[in-house]
């Protein structure tokens, strides 16, 4: 390999006069600037490969975490179902959860979870969507820059604080409105409403992202045809952003199902098969927290049972999250 550009050669040889390269040249190794032919093939760099290997491991830890979750929940659940007192039929068919007397029907916990989530969604979905439409379509830039951080503050408050709020504010409020005889001290309604307040920022910020991503040309075309602001927002922008809004709703449901501290504090302790929102009932997450809060001995049926509930919870939230990702991918409207 010969070098033909004299200027480059001059520059490089001037460089090699004062650098460590000069020494290398004398040893006759491949150096820039003439001499023996250059070897430009890739050199093995040990440190670089080591670093890359380490970084790869960092990425792989996330896979290990998932495997760990599946292994732990699966193993303990298998132990739970291997117990002679338990079988799948009783687990999914029973309406009584009393581990002390060998009743393991999951339904009281599931109905309480669904009831709290349903109430939460009745609060969060309409409110979150209205706030998103307001922020994206109505609010002036200045107002939006003040309001969005406020919603972020709401999202950053720890859930145990919301639990306190449910117990010391929402429950007395409900009892004041509906009467102390009807509303028990611990009830799913108060927990559900507060979970709703908790997920409003999630719904509104995800929906607002989806709404803002709709190109302005669509709005201008709509205004040009004489549509009002409301008609543009609801009939043009919202349908165009529907996949993002739907994904936000599903993520919110998943968040509400997995919410723990609010129900642990405000919804009551003790599984109760009821459909009244004003009665005390224990959700899946609330039950796990109460059981593991006490002194729990390993390999007892109580210990294994919380992992079975955890597995159900994990599968439920995972499928909701996967569904929301699928909706975004499948139904996204591309305008660019």
């Amino acid at each position, binding site marked *: 390999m010969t070098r033909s550009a004299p200027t480059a050669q001059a520059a490089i040889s001037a460089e090699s006069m004062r650098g460590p390269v000069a020494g290398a040249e004398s040893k006759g190794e491949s150096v820039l600037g003439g001499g023996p032919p250059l070897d430009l093939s890739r050199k093995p*760099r040990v440190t*670089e490969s080591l670093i890359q290997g380490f*970084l*790869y*491991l*960092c*990425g792989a*830890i*996330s*896979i290990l*975490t*998932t495997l*760990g*979750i599946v292994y*732990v929940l699966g193993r*303990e659940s298998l132990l739970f179902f291997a117990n002679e007192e338990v079988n799948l039929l009783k687990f999914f068919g029973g309406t009584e959860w009393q581990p002390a007397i060998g009743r393991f029907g999951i339904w009281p916990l599931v109905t309480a979870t669904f009831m709290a989530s349903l109430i939460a969604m009745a609060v969060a979905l309409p*409110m979150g969507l*209205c*706030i998103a439409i*307001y*922020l994206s379509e*109505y*609010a002036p830039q200045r107002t939006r820059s003040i*309001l969005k*951080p*406020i*919603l972020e*503050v709401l999202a*950053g*408050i*720890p859930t*145990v*604080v*919301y*639990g*306190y*709020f449910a117990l010391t504010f929402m429950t007395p409020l409900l009892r004041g409105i509906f009467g102390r005889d009807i509303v028990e001290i611990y009830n799913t309604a108060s927990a559900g409403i507060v979970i709703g*307040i908790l997920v*409003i920022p999630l719904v*509104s910020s995800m929906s607002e992202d989806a709404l803002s991503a709709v190109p302005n040309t669509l709005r201008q075309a709509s205004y040009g045809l004489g549509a*009002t*602001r*409301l*008609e543009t927002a609801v009939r043009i922008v919202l349908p165009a952003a529907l996949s993002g809004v739907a994904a936000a709703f599903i993520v919110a449901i998943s968040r509400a*199902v*997995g*919410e*723990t501290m609010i129900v*642990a504090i405000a919804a009551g302790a003790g599984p109760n098969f009821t459909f009244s929102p004003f009665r005390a009932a224990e959700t899946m*997450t609330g039950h*796990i*927290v109460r059981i*593991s*809060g006490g002194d729990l001995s390993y390999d007892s049926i109580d210990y294994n049972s919380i*992992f079975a509930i*955890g597995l159900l*919870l*994990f599968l439920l*939230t*995972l499928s909701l999250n996967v569904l929301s990702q699928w909706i975004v991918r499948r139904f996204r409207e591309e305008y660019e």
Partner: protein
Amino acid sequence: MAIHRQQTLSQPADGLMPSGTAYHEQVAARQRRGRTWAIVFQATMLSGIVALCALLLNILNQSFGYVAIVNTIDPTELAVDGVPLNELPKDNLVEILEANISAGLMRRYENDMPFTERSREDVHDLILERVVEPQVQATWGLFDSIFARGSVFAEAEEQFPGSDVYFRSWLTTSFISKSQSSEPLRAGVRTAIFGSLWVVAITILFSFPIGVGAAIYLEEYAQKERLLNRLIQTNINNLAGVPSIIYGMLGLAIFVRILELFTSGAFLGIGDQSTANGRTIISAGLTLGLLILPLIIINGQEAIRAVPNSLRQAGFGLGATHWQVIWHHVLPSAMPGVLTGTILAVSRAIGETAPLVIVGASTFIALDPSGPFSKFTVLPIQIYQWTSRPQDEFRNLAAAAILVLLILLLSLNASAVLLRNRFDRSRAIA
């Protein structure tokens, strides 16, 4: 063609488009509907803010207010020669203490720390604790205390005759500096604050390097089309949506149980061997580390992706290796974004309660944690435990602890916002 279209526009099909008064009525109705909904949207936004205000005011309301207290011995009876208790010199105070408590207890205090070395305030506190023994009878909220002062005093007089009613702030410096106690008037959050700091330190040490490393791998090294890398990416997105309680169960099974030898400190021979188990600070920190890892990775990826490609190409053009480009060029300019994401993730970890209940935070410890292998409690756990107790005064304590937690989180978030703003400005200049 154009003429034809004009004709069709000027002559609308019959029945499809209203005309005359019907047209004007319809326009008016549409505008009315638009205005109504605009008000609805604004009202919803407002009610969201009202909810936030209600939450904060509720906590403030519970943190301050009148309390009715009954003393076993009235402090005025302890006055010597007309000098009230809180102005007496130390010698008199020691005499009072000796006269009112048993000799055994006196000897125990002497053994803990000789009275000659104790300060006057210390002895004064002991008298309040052991002799005066104040008991909270009832508490009132801040708003009742301000706006219905008369009825508060009337109620206290009627229900708790002979009680002292005074205005008390539950959030005081001694609340922050005192350790846990079963007496609400003397309880504090020092153990919990130290516990939180220890746990969060472990969390950061674990999750920051690994999270940033994974983000670098995924953005700089991974070939996106390979199945394994796509799997890692999808997996991280899904992990971010797993409920925190599941991480708690993972931590219980892996760190507390399977790795008990390490997490209890037994392999180093430190920690209290008799009660050693895996329910320690390090288990809690690692569990929270796994919990916030996906958040740090996702935020880190976004920050690294935002670094312009020209920077990398310039580095490669000068002959830098891949790692040199990342270490000297990509990482420094991505760092503010990475740090902002990390601070937000850490503030999530500080407020997290459920996984730590499951990992096994202690229900009552009065000793400060001494290292990663001690038992622990953290601020949110303390709040949860106080909230779960039926007595009103513990609710007040919980409210004060919530204020401490919120102030901590607020300062963290403010620093994240400042960092982001500074980053935006410096990028605008560059």
